[in-house]
């Protein structure tokens, strides 16, 4: 079926199969930041924002995204770049495979305008498994990023 997807404020017309998931469609459309970490929507690597809300794209049928705003990390370059400074400073960044998903979830939290409590931050990061960092540094990095960047 032919559908139109709005990805990072640009329309893409593409052919998808009815059972196709958004991760595969986005990768085919060269949104390579969207990667597959598991096949059970458990890990958070494939996270994208649909209408501003974080969603595991590996469990979201592509045709259902038609007419909705899809944001990948390529759509928030300034925020991702800024967040990376805090990750680097805290020793929170390693292999980077989970980071685009985290950047999107943190962006969504920031858009929701707080409160940026540690509980809130932890709640957001619960959806993002990471095997490198041990999480503690991630929590600290996100906390500092939000403290420095809230409007």
């Amino acid at each position: 079926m032919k559908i139109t997807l709005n990805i990072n404020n640009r329309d893409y017309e593409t052919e998808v199969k009815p059972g196709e998931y958004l991760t595969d469609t986005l990768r085919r459309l060269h949104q390579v930041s969207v990667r597959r970490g598991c096949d059970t929507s458990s890990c958070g690597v494939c996270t994208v924002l649909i209408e501003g809300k974080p969603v595991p794209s590996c469990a979201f049928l592509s045709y259902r995204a038609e007419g909705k705003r899809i944001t990948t990390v390529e759509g928030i370059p300034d925020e991702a770049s800024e967040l990376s400074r805090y990750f680097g400073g805290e020793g929170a960044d390693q292999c980077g495979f989970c980071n685009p998903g985290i950047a999107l979830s943190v962006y969504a939290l920031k858009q929701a305008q707080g409160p940026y409590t540690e509980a809130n931050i932890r709640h957001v990061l619960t959806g993002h498994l990471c095997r490198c960092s041990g999480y503690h540094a991630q929590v600290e990095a996100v906390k500092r990023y939000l403290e420095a960047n809230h409007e």
Partner: protein
Amino acid sequence: MNKTKTVNTVRPSIDGKGLMMGRSAYTDDLAAADSLIIKVLRSPHAFAEIKTIDTTAAENLPGVVCVLTHRDFKRNAHTRAGQGYPEPSPHDKFVLDRYVRYVGDEVAAVAAIDVETAEAALDLIAVDYEVFEPVLDFEKAKDNPVRVHPEDDIYEMFPIGFDPKRNLAAGYHMEVGDIEKTLSESDVVIRQSYYTQAQAHVMMEPHAVNARLDYNDRLVIYSSTQTPFHVRRILSQTLEVPLRRIRVIKPRVGGGFGGKQAIHGELLAAAVTLKTGRPSKLVYTRKEVFGATYTRHPMRLDLAIGATKDGKITGIDCYGLSDTGAYGEHALTVFMVTGSKVLPLYNKVDSVRFHGDVVYTNRTSSGAYRGYGAIQGNFALESTIDMLAAKLDMDPIALRKKNMIMEGQTSPIFEIMGEGTEGTAMNMESCKLDYCVDRGLTLTDWKKTYPRQENGHKVRSLGMAIAMQGSGIPYIDMGAATIKLNDDGFYNLLIGATDIGQGSDTILAQIAAEALMCDVEDVAVYSSDSDLTPFDAGAYASSTTYVSGNAVLKAANELKAMLMKEAARVLHTKIENVRYDGTTFSSEETSISLKDLSNQLYYNDEQKQLTATSSYVGHKSPPPFMAGFCEIEIDKETGEFDVLNYTSVVDCGVTINKALAKGQIEGGVVQGLGMATFEDVHVAKNGKLITTDMLNYKIPSVKEIHRLTTEFAESYETSGPYGAKSVGEIGIDTPPAALANAVYNALGVRITRLPITPEKILKALKEKENEHA
């Protein structure tokens, strides 16, 4: 210690920003758009022989380009282990074989134009199996009438105790002194058996490989590997393609932890592309990562420790049984590390023995996994030390301090045990273990909580353990670096060393920048490309900072000497009169900037390329040390517990990058806590894996990790680059024992079988009650 500008600072990874921004970087991002998709038919049986395999229907399916079975491969026994050559692992694997030895073993591979076609083709392959009774219990594997490897064309490269007729992949025995005599003469002897489970690596990026033939008909492989040079060698030997025709490129890798030291999809992708001439790719599903790569070796360790009444440890005896699964990758070396990087912690013993077997079973293979045997051994030894302290009615800290290894000391084990071979004698030139212990006591306010603080049915307690690891494999694994000066005065650092997320590109650039007195941004790093970078054994055995780091430092110093010589020529003076501040060379009379000197060298006068290449092989493997403290709150009615804080005090020499070193420790600690608390690979009675996805195999999330406290000791290893030792593995070793000791301190029950779950704690409490009743 000289003041350093770049080394021993906090700085972000050089690739952190690009990766956060989602740039194309990992293996699957870089596959050719028209790659054939490879899917693998895997065995549904734990042990079977393929009687017939009919691929006609699959081959006739439109869109299928090629189907491979064992008939398509010459029988070249190899090991996937990804180690130096000759490998200390048996050559017991074939690309595809008539025999399948675990549920998930490769039966056939299909290459098709898309995923759906490839998967549909798998269903059309008709296989007739003769199914055998599998060997699943590793304690019944040795001399079992069922032979996991009945074939006769497999072999060891040198003696490792390989005896497939007895289901033995490897075996080992060492003894210093007379352990039986020592134990019989000891005032106190503690004997205890321990079981450690299979743990899955669960790196976030599944194993991925893609292959293509370039315009010169050379085979180019992109792989998410920890060992690109070993991959090239194994591909060449196994597929009989000349080494000169293969190029292996390691792009960014989404974590490895040992799970990507071995080769997994590379052989099939290479075979498909060589056969079809078309690009191909194989990306493992998460189910395949769980079921058809590796786990940590499960072990049983029988430990005996003897001591005098006043707490001098007299002897340690350890028998181990290790389960290597279907293939013997890392069988001997992981087992040896269980002794060699654990037992020297208590170096003042009269006798020590370490021996045992590594057996084949019909389970997913075990392989390299961060800690590499040391975490298993540490759990057994450091649990038993606390048991001994309890028996002697002695403070466990005092017992450790009295017996543990100290700076300037050695252990005979270093000389006897290497990795698959003899070891290397060494003194501990840097060992701040005593500081690590003391600092941990302060940070955790040990005296206030130890052994427990009760509050109704909630109990708070602390437990601790000490650990050591190594820094590379001396006299075996080499790292090399090339540094190239460019016009405008910036550098390329070309290294074989393999960044898999740990940040080695960054810390090696820092080492180069420190020596060349420039900014890290002036060093453009390119790593792990078998055509373009010099050799490096790869990212394993805590090697990179120490081994590859030393190579980088040597190369940088050589290039700096060349620059000084050229500057002296241009400034018409002797080298000893040239001063350099990082940007300008000056003599008494005149000066020239690095930028101008470089431009002259390439464009104007006495033109020449300045490049330095250097390499390093360790002459020893200086251990990093750590004291780990686990603070828990446990409910004595339910056995449920929370790890409130895990405190690590680490001696890894000088940290090249404090942020990245902390990341290594904390990531290791949390993986160790996962193993200590709930991670467990479950296999059904028929050998089928139950934990095939992240829902059934849980790894720690941020929910379980409340707080981590990480500090580094002031320490300087003279043989390391700028005083550094390695730091990749040491963090993982202490959590199982520290948690077991904390549980004992809280409730008086000792859990000896990992993982330590509330159910096991409750059961032990019940048994304790029954004893008293």
